[in-house]
Each structure stands twice: as C-alpha cells, then as structure tokens.
C-alpha cells in the first residue's frame, strides 16, 4: 500500500486538507460540492508529477478544454497563482509535489530564453512548473509545461531525463468506468494474468471458467457449448469487470474512481465490493472512490463484516468543507460505520 497520509494545499476549492489513516480501500462521501472530485484529482496529480500535462488533463475532465491562462488558473485556490499547489503523500511511498504557475505577466521570465526566442510574444509565455521529491531522497526533480502563446492548444512539455515514474495510477472520472476496458483486458491476457480476473469474477458468478478477448468483444466461458459475450451476464457484471480490470492494471499503484456508484444498480453493490476488496488485496492496488450513495456504503458494511473479506484494510471518510475552505476528512472505522448504517443515519 502506497500512502497512509495525504495533505493537500491550495488545489482548486481546497485551501487545506489532511487525511490520515488511509487504508488499501478508501471511500469518501459528503455533500455535493464539498470537494470529493477535487480530492481525487489531487491524488492523481500527486501520482504523476513528472508529467506536466496532468493538470491540463484534470481540467479537460472538468470540460475546460482549452489551455488558456484563465483555465490553468482554475487549478489554484482562489484563482490566485501565488497560492502554490502542494500535495504530499506519506507511507510506504513518499512524495512531495509543488505546482506553481508561470504567468504571462510574471517577473520570473527566464531572460536567457528571451535571447533565444526574441519574438514579440516571448515575454507572454505562461504555463506550469512542477517540482517534486520522491521517497527519502533530497533531490528535487522538475517538469514544466509552457503553452504556445500563439496557439493555446499547443504546449511544450519538459520532463526530467533520468527520472522514470515507478508508480502506475489511473483516475476514472464519473461516468467513464467502461473506458478502455478492452485494452486493459488485452494487456492482462498478454501478461498471462487472466486467471486472476476469472478468480475474482467467480466471487460474483461462480460459473465463469474463462475470459477471452475475441474480435474486440469480451467473451466468457460459463460452461455452455460456446463462449458468451460478457454483456449477456448483465450490465452490473460488465461494470464490475471494468473496475476489476482497472484494479489489476494499477497493480501496486493507485486507482481513483469518482462517483463509483454512477449507473450501478443497488442489487449489485455487494458484489462490487467483494470484487474490489479481493482484487485490491491481491494486487496491492490502493483505491480511492467517492460516492453519493448511502446504498453503496451500506453494501460495503455488509461485505467487510463477512469473515473472508475482513482482512482488507478499509477506511471511510465523511468530507466536510469548512467556511475557510479547509476540507476535513472525518474517518469512520469499521465499528462506527457499521453503527451509522444500522441506525440508518445519513452518510451523504
């Protein structure tokens, strides 16, 4: 498991946030606009600081499709570039990430570059600078993204040679759970790990004996004379399979899923958790999910109280945004979460 504690400063609407005692499986719930998606985006930024396009990617998810200076500024708390974004993770993996903005009117323009690019636009460059430290090393790495002042859809990304990101992470925005499912399965089959997928799927459909990707279709063997498309087993199974594949793809790394309950019927929620708890433990994938669904949290309580699932470490947090924009993550342990669900208390 990578991280047990995470702190965030100045990212979007979050001025400050400290989360402690993270588990392998982490669930966040809270009111609308409290900062659930922002929190997951911050974790995603922390996962890949060597890639300076990540802040632009998270903006694209928010429908900010251009890379204009104003759009980039939305990453910074209070739309103020002076507020550098700082994200820190601690645990078996350690990293500190600091994202700062290069503003077009900035006094920080590199004069040596001006002489190399003495055009009328050269003083108007803008973009992002990321400084990061990994593990116990004191060395500070850098990456940078400079947007073309003449064409905001183009940018020059500078990454540091000699640093290679060792941790795989994926962020799945709300409603995108089925994306790239085939590609992920194909890679798992190449790595000869499909038996692990079958083992996890057996938790929800014991008849499944085999899974294959045939002519861009995911086919399963359920003991009949021919294989069936996985869709035949129902939409729920297909969605759970997509999440399972994402967990396997992020082996040893991090997976963030926003609004994991989106489009999921409550009747399959226990199966979803069985697969998540099993697969995350098997792959040492640390998962972070957000949800609005009290049913989903209730299903989690049902599952983690089952004997065979009790070993996976699960943390659940209610997120509360204070008036001063500190996001506070109030942690429920298993006992307290079981209690509030049994009392039918609101978890949204």
């Amino acid at each position, binding site marked *: 498991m990578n991280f047990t504690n995470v702190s965030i400063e100045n990212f979007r609407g979050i001025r400050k946030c400290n989360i402690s005692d993270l588990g392998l499986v982490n669930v966040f719930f809270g009111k609308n606009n409290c900062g659930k998606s922002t929190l997951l985006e911050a974790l995603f930024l922390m996962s890949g600081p060597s890639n300076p396009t990540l802040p632009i990617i998270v903006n694209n998810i928010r429908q900010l499709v251009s890379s204009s200076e104003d759009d980039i500024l939305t990453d910074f708390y209070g739309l103020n570039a002076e507020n550098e974004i700082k994200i820190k993770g601690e645990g078996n993996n350690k990293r500190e990430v600091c994202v700062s903005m290069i503003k077009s009117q900035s006094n920080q323009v590199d004069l040596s570059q001006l002489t190399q690019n003495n055009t009328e636009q050269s003083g108007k460059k803008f973009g992002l600078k990321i400084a990061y430290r990994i593990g116990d090393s004191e060395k500070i790495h850098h990456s940078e993204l400079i947007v073309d002042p003449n064409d905001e859809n183009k940018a020059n990304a500078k990454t540091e040679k000699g640093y290679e990101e060792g941790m795989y992470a994926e962020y799945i925005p709300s409603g995108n759970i089925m994306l790239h499912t085939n590609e992920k399965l194909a890679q798992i089959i190449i790595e000869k790990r499909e038996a692990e997928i079958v083992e996890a799927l057996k938790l929800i459909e014991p008849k499944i004996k085999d899974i294959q990707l045939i002519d861009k279709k995911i086919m399963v063997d359920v003991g009949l004379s021919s294989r069936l498309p996985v869709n035949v087993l129902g939409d729920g199974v297909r969605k759970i399979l997509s999440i399972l594949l994402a967990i396997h793809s992020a082996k040893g790394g991090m997976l963030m899923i926003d609004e994991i309950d989106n489009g999921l019927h409550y009747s399959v929620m226990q199966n979803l958790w069985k697969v998540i708890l099993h697969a995350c433990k098997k792959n040492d994938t640390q998962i972070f999910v957000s949800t609005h669904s009290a049913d989903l949290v209730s299903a989690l309580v049902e599952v983690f109280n089952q004997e065979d699932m009790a070993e996976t470490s699960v943390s659940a947090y209610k997120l509360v945004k204070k008036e001063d924009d500190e996001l506070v993550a*109030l942690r429920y342990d298993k006992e307290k979460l079981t209690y509030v669900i049994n009392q039918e*208390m609101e978890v949204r």
Partner: protein
Amino acid sequence: MTRIFIEAKHEKTSESVFIHTLLKHIGKDSKSFEVIHVDGKDNLKNNKVKFQENTLIGGRNLVVFDADTPESGWGYEATKKRILSTFSDDVKIDDMFLYPNNQNDGVFENLLERLMQKEKHSRFFDCFTDYENCLGDEYVSPDLKGKLHTYMSAQKSLSNKERKNLGSGQWLFDDERFWNLDSEDLKPLREFFMSNI
C-alpha cells in the same frame, strides 16, 4: 444547526416525539435543530463523526440523556462524568441535560409522570394506585413505563388513528387534556433548549 443526541433508538419513540413536540411548543424552528437517535449510552462513542462534523460547520452539540439511578449503577453525577469521558479533546459537547431535571437522579419517564394531567384524570390515578397495591411484591411494581403507556391507551376520547399511533410514540404531548408542557417541572428543560437553540 444544533444537534440533539438522545438515547432513543429511533424517531418512533415517545422520547423522540416528546423532544420534537416540546421544541415546537417553545417556538423552535425545525430547521434549527436535528435530533440524533443514539440507541443507548454505550453507542454515544459511535457518534464521534456526527459531533465533529457539526462543530466544523459551526453547529452546537447537545446531549440529552437519562441521569439514571445509583441502583442501576449510575446517577446524575456518575452519568455526567461518563458522558464527558466518552470522547477525547477532538469532540465538543456544547451542553448536556440529564433527565428528569438536570439535577436529580432519574429517567425521562420521571419527567413525563410529572407532566400528566392528574387532576383531569383523577379516577385513572386512583385506580392505578389500587392496581399497583394489589400486585404487591409478586409482580413488577411500580412500573412507570407501563403506567405511562396505560395512561394514554386508556383514554377513551382517542380517535382510531390516534390510538394506532400510540405505538409509534405519538402520545399527543401537545394535547392539554393529557399533558402540561407549561409545567414548572419542565422549566429546566425548556430553559436548556431556549438557551442552546
């Protein structure tokens, strides 16, 4: 928002209905408070997040429990200590009221007993005293909870719907035929809520 943590298990209990009715009676807007049903003193600790969350958003947390009695192992002082030691410094209890009057040992039902309209139903109370005497030592007597329940279910003037709702704790606390919410005995609780909500 003021959160009121009470011992009752759920909203269909006389204790919960009483709190809601009293707060309405003293003019408190239902949007200004939320009653949290703790389901017994032992479960107070499991409400840690509910306390913390409310404090973070500027709300106040009130605990309204039974003082209980030394015979049951507790009592006003012991229960007060027990509640205050439930959490560490990271949880704030803004104020506390222990039934019946935030001073003596006892329970919620002791307060209710004092609010019953005894003069209007003198026959009931005379008969009930005879009944309790008649039971002697062979049965549970006095049985305050039984007395309160019988008091309401014996009322002939109840409609069918009102009678059916008795089981959900709807004991018509705002009906002066049965209860006196302006009683002096209720003054400590009324003042507690007036100063905290």
